[in-house]
């Protein structure tokens, strides 16, 4: 569990600049509980930019099903960990 938590915080650390860049908010703080509704500007177009940017940064590809099932940043982190293992 400790390793999982460590991975999660490392991934959120890597995700933060991506979210800040795409959503144009230098002060944005994301947590596992963060949802699109919580963040100004996280609309469908921003979501597409986020997905593409995250795929590039983490050198992985998601499927449409994987992305549509995500409810918050924590789900995204879990997906990234799953695809990394």
């Amino acid at each position, binding site marked *: 569990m400790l390793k999982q938590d460590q991975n999660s915080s490392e991934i959120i650390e890597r995700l933060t600049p991506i979210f800040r860049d795409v959503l144009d908010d230098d002060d944005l703080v994301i947590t596992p509980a963060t949802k699109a509704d919580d963040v100004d500007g996280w609309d469908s177009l921003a979501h*597409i*930019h986020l997905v*593409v940017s995250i*795929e*590039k940064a983490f050198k992985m590809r998601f499927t*449409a099903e994987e992305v549509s099932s995500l409810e918050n940043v924590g789900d995204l982190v879990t997906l990234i960990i799953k695809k990394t293992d």
Partner: protein
Amino acid sequence: MAEPLSGWDAYHDGMRCGWDFRFSSENMHTFEQLSGDHNPIHTDPVFARTKGFDAPLIYGLLLASQLSRLIGQELPDNHAILTGITMDFINPAFADENLRFDAELVTKSDAAHALGFKCRITRAGKTLCRGTADAVWRA
């Protein structure tokens, strides 16, 4: 014989397209009127020479219009919508020159139905502009 791919499957990493084009002085004048950019670097040969150029420079965003053509006109269907562009202007381009635009699909995100292209404008093989075009595909 296999059916040709259609829809989203018609797009694949590495797919390429390109075409030859040119802009006339009249095209430049039209862009000047539409954009409201009357800077003499684009309109006055004498002024352009004082800046070290042989002729007025083609407007950078007129060159970038080829990115619009790429996404709107040259893809396998009409479902792509331009969502972002970048363009670096490396060498000058002038009116009535034969130019070439080439693009390659470098990013295809199945998850987001998003496309990313790398693009280049050349004259006789010399790179004038490098850029990117991003699009979302909505069938």
